[in-house]
């Protein structure tokens, strides 16, 4: 028979935090329930790489002590899942890679520290594509994650474990990372809200670096309100990350209920083009979301960003170049698995060759090629110039529009193995999520409906830097009419 903690875990995060914060239920009780659910999500879906019972119980006891001492905690006792490429002090962080087997994080990532300080309880580390490289969670060294809406389909990636953990009901909130869509696309595939911040709004300290000029930590949640609550806590300047923004964090929560009348929304024309490759159900959902915003009083029109189709080449040349540099640190000397060898050079080669999976090797090679002598100007250099051009195109679009709307993914969740034989086809599916990443813009995926065969569909809202208050409000309008939030997937663990 479901207990108090079960009911609270299935409701809004603020109600759960209020119940723990006022002593109506103990964080310890909530943590036990979430740990049991996380165990089930690990077993049935492969969502977790670690269910952290011991540390979660200690953390929950600490929350109960702080509440008893009169401390106000906006996330009191809220169970949190953390993607395994984000550091949680004292817990392993493999980033889904064998090369980091045995590595234990020495301290919290800043985003984790902020949420834990607010009362969140980390219940486990979630599965992900190796080093965040993938769009299906089929690239984890520790096995795939299954989509709780259809176990034969992928949950998206690379934050697929975090998405499955929230969508299945194991936890109400999860942290992911988003380099080219790794929070938004899995949110779209699993019926969740997924937020990628304005670049610099959330610290990257404690994230296992993939592509530093793109990487951002983001939140996956069941509702816009839950995600907005986490936004205000996770965001903020950090002296340990020089790229964080020193300006005040925009207030999302207090403006969540404001209307969207008169807001100018641009529908991305290229989404409707043959290159957009939209699934008919996604196209219908796109049109319905646009109509919903129109009915809410927004001024909706079509906008063209003709060079947006170049975003995938630009992203996969620049992000892999950064990865080839960032991942040079995995050499078997300071951490992780080592392959013993007679010389230092062979130790590096053998450790890396045995430790990295195929997709990571492919991206390191692509990035190393793009940076190598004789090819740098024609590939990496050119991609950087087009990146600047794309950012300028967005800037021009935002003179006429307050935000842009397009599908998060051209299609709903696909089946396992459908794209693994052709890496390029997997990359091209990122067509809508990489453009805002290139320009450092905030973007959010919100559930907009279901396909004919019952799979969630998500819409992406993109705005200028620091436009999160508007993006969350627009998302709330779509959420209210979509009828996705609150529906449980067939493989829910709750």
């Amino acid at each position, binding site marked *: 028979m479901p207990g108090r903690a079960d009911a609270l875990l299935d409701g809004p995060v603020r109600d759960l935090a209020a119940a723990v914060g006022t002593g109506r239920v103990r964080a310890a009780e909530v943590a036990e329930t979430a740990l049991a659910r996380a165990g089930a999500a690990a077993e049935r879906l492969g969502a977790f790489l670690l269910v952290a019972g011991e540390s979660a119980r200690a953390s929950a006891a600490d929350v109960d002590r702080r509440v008893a001492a009169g401390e106000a905690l906006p996330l009191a006792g809220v169970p949190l899942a953390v993607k395994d490429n984000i550091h949680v002090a004292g817990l392993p962080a493999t980033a889904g890679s064998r090369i980091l087997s*045995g*590595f*234990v*994080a*020495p301290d919290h990532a800043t985003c984790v520290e902020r949420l834990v300080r607010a009362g969140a309880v980390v219940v486990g580390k979630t599965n992900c594509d190796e080093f965040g490289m993938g769009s299906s969670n089929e690239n984890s060294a520790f096995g795939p994650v299954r989509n709780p809406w259809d176990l034969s389909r992928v949950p998206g990636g690379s934050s697929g474990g975090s998405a499955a953990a929230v969508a299945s009901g194991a936890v109400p909130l999860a942290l992911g990372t988003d380099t080219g869509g790794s929070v938004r696309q899995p949110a779209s595939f699993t019926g969740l809200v997924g937020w990628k911040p304005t670049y610099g709004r959330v610290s990257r300290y404690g994230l296992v670096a993939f592509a530093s*000029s793109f990487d951002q930590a983001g939140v996956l949640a069941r509702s816009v309100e839950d995600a907005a609550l986490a936004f205000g806590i996770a965001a903020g300047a950090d*002296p340990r990350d*020089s*790229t964080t923004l020193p300006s005040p964090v925009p207030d999302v929560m207090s403006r969540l209920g404001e209307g969207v009348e008169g807001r100018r929304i641009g529908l991305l024309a290229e989404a409707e083009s043959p290159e957009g490759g939209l699934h008919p159900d996604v196209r219908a959902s796109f049109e319905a979301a646009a109509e919903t915003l129109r009915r809410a009083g927004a001024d909706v029109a079509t906008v063209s960003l003709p*060079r947006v*189709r*170049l975003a995938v*080449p*630009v992203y*996969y*040349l620049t992000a892999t170049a950064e990865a*080839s540099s960032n991942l*040079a640190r995995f*050499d*078997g*000397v*300071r*951490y*992780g*698995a*080592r392959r013993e*060898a*007679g*010389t*230092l*050079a062979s*130790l*590096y*080669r*053998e450790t*890396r*060759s045995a430790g*990295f999976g195929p997709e990571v*090797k*492919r991206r*390191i*090679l*692509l990035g*190393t*090629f793009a940076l*190598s002598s004789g090819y740098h100007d024609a*590939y990496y250099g*050119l*991609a*950087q*110039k*087009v*990146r*600047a*051009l794309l950012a*300028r195109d967005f800037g021009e679009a935002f003179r006429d529009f307050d935000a842009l709307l397009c599908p998060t993914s051209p299609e709903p969740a696909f089946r396992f193995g459908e794209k693994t034989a052709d*890496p*390029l086809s997997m*990359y091209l599916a990122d067509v809508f999520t990489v453009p805002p990443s290139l320009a450092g813009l905030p973007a959010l995926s919100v559930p907009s409906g279901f396909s004919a065969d019952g799979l969630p569909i998500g819409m992406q809202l993109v705005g200028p830097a620091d436009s999160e208050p508007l993006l969350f409000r627009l998302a709330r309008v779509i959420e209210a009419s979509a009828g996705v939030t609150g529906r449980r997937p067939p493989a829910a663990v709750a």
Partner: protein
Amino acid sequence: MKLDRDLVRKVARLAALELSPGEEEELSGQLTRIVEHFEALREVPDALLAGAGDAPPTPLRRDDSRDGSPGALVAGNAPEFSHGHFVVPRVVSRD
């Protein structure tokens, strides 16, 4: 352009990776297909690129000194650690 096996092998050496002949063959095909698709970037007129500007520089941290000595977990994470140092195979010999 085609990334033949020789080029793939050269790039792998730069990246400190060893590939089997089968991996070289497979990656040659995959990377060629990817890179040829990405050559669409060359369609952008030079005049537009000239005016695109550069990426903004990365802000620098304050140049403050900090205690960078390895803690117990840093040492514990190392495959081999001794007397405050990471141990690697000998890189200098008398021969």
